């Protein structure tokens, strides 16, 4: 399976240490996340086929398809977020930020990235705690604990965290003016 959208981040010769290993790590994780997104979506499609077939053609509705589709969807949303973050596809308001002088723009960029890191670290920690605590709570129609669903949040947070660190690192290391990833 080849996913055309996967792009290698540009490596800069003057980059600070640890940039190359970090870039390799995020590229690898991104490839996994992309594959997982495709698989999740195909799983949603299969679940919907089952739901529609059993309800309308066989008149024997399955009880668990709707819940399964919802949980797969939650996972697809959480995992799609870092994929979109890496490609700069999240909605950003650039009216002001793109008119700033380069130096100020880098400082502002680092500021918002630090703020993002602060949130993502908290999301990872709180999400992990929530996942552990909900391990004893079972889903309604499926034999799985809620931890399986909640754990998507910290995983997504860690992926976005690494992407943001990499972006911030690049902003720090570069003397040149560069768009945020």
């Amino acid at each position: 399976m080849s996913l055309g959208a996967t792009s290698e981040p540009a490596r800069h010769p003057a980059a600070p240490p640890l940039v190359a290993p970090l870039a390799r790590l995020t590229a690898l994780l991104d490839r996994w996340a992309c594959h997982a997104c495709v698989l999740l979506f195909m799983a949603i499609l299969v679940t919907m086929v089952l739901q529609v077939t059993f309800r309308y053609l066989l008149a024997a509705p399955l009880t668990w398809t709707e819940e399964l589709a919802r949980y797969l969807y939650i996972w697809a949303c959480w995992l799609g977020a870092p994929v979109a973050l890496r490609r700069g596809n999240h909605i950003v308001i650039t009216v002001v930020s793109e008119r700033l002088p380069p130096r100020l723009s880098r400082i502002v960029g680092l500021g918002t990235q630090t703020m993002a890191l602060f949130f993502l670290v908290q999301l990872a920690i709180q999400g992990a705690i929530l996942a552990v605590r909900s391990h004893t709570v079972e889903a309604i129609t499926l034999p799985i604990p809620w931890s399986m669903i909640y754990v998507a949040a910290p995983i997504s947070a860690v992926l976005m965290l690494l992407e943001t660190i990499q972006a911030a690192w690049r902003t720090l290391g570069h003397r040149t003016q560069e768009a945020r990833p």
Partner: protein
Amino acid sequence: MTVGPLIWMWLGLMVLGMPLFLTMASSCLVYLMANDEILLSVPQRLTAAANSFPLLAAPFFMLTGLAMNTAGITHRIYDFAECLVGRFRGGLAHVNVIGSVIFAGMSGSAVADAAGLGTIEIKAMTDEGYPRDFAAAVTAASATIGPIIPPSVPLLIYGVLADVSIGRLFLGGFIPGLLMAAALMAMIRWMAQKRSFGAHPAPTLREFVTRTRKAFLSLMTPVILFGGMLIGVFTPTEAAFAAAVYALTLGVVIYREIRWRDLPRIFLETVETNAVVLMLVMTASLMGWVLARAQVPQQLGAWILGTTRDPLYILLMINVFLLIVGCFMEALAAMIILVPVFLPVIQSVGIDPVHFGLVMVLNLMIGTLTPPVGIVLFVVARVAKLPFEVVTRATAPFLVPLIAVLVLITVFPELVLWLPRLVLG
């Protein structure tokens, strides 16, 4: 910490160019930490917002739009629209509007319309000597019909938030959407006269039949989408799923313009686009929850109801407020934060939430055409390769017919409510 600093911090981060979902998430986090609240509710609320079966219709609407644009279905729709209205003065501009109306019946987003059909429309119009900025303006203005004529991602999300029947909301969008098309075409007719644009010769009967036949299977997508839903068999999610599978089958098996090995890429793009929207839904609903805990809706409601209890006056006030908000905020985020704020007020004075939903979505769609934050303007400027300012200026005259329709449906709720009542009782 009170709500004031929360709002200022959020606006500040937004202006500084932080991704929108992170601005909402991180300012809410700081607010909750400053008030010693339990932070477990952050991942819990975010996840809960995505845990909705109706919302699952959103990726299927996106997949349908993507399949249409990839499979050359958009071209067939364009050719069909050309033989319908190309003969009027300002022909291709009318084609642009009618093409958007047809596309609106299959896709649920203004951006998909502007990016997909828009590319074809702007090229065709400039090839024929229309000014590029005029072509871009017509494309941008008509793209806003997309989320009004069902299916519609914003109406779907409104329905989930306000707990309103999605079938009713979708049906309620038909007449306002057609009114928007009529108003835009009247405006184009008038401008075409002034700027003496030409027209295409009327198609021969044979040409008409050929083009209709070529577009026929694509034109069946809305029938599949609404057929099952309206006779009450399919839920919106199942209907959206059926339409997406139909559009993919057309592209892969019948027209053969999508190869099997393109499918993973298309699925990935669907999941990614969906995640961008859902991250907004999730973080905005976290923010809505924070505002609700701080009693903001109650205080605002009390303030509005203290000024007036006249439903029409309240709606007009909210409209003016939303038009201003729409200039500065992304439409979906604005809607998700403001629905819980306004809904109690609306219901307490007896305004139908279906009516309010259409007014709100149409209003915020006009907001996608107003600077400084106008998502449709950004997309069209990119597609037309024109500066943002040029597209903004050219689009401005088209705000007049769109706002006229907004005022119409605000003042006459029956324009929205008649069709759902007729079909669903």
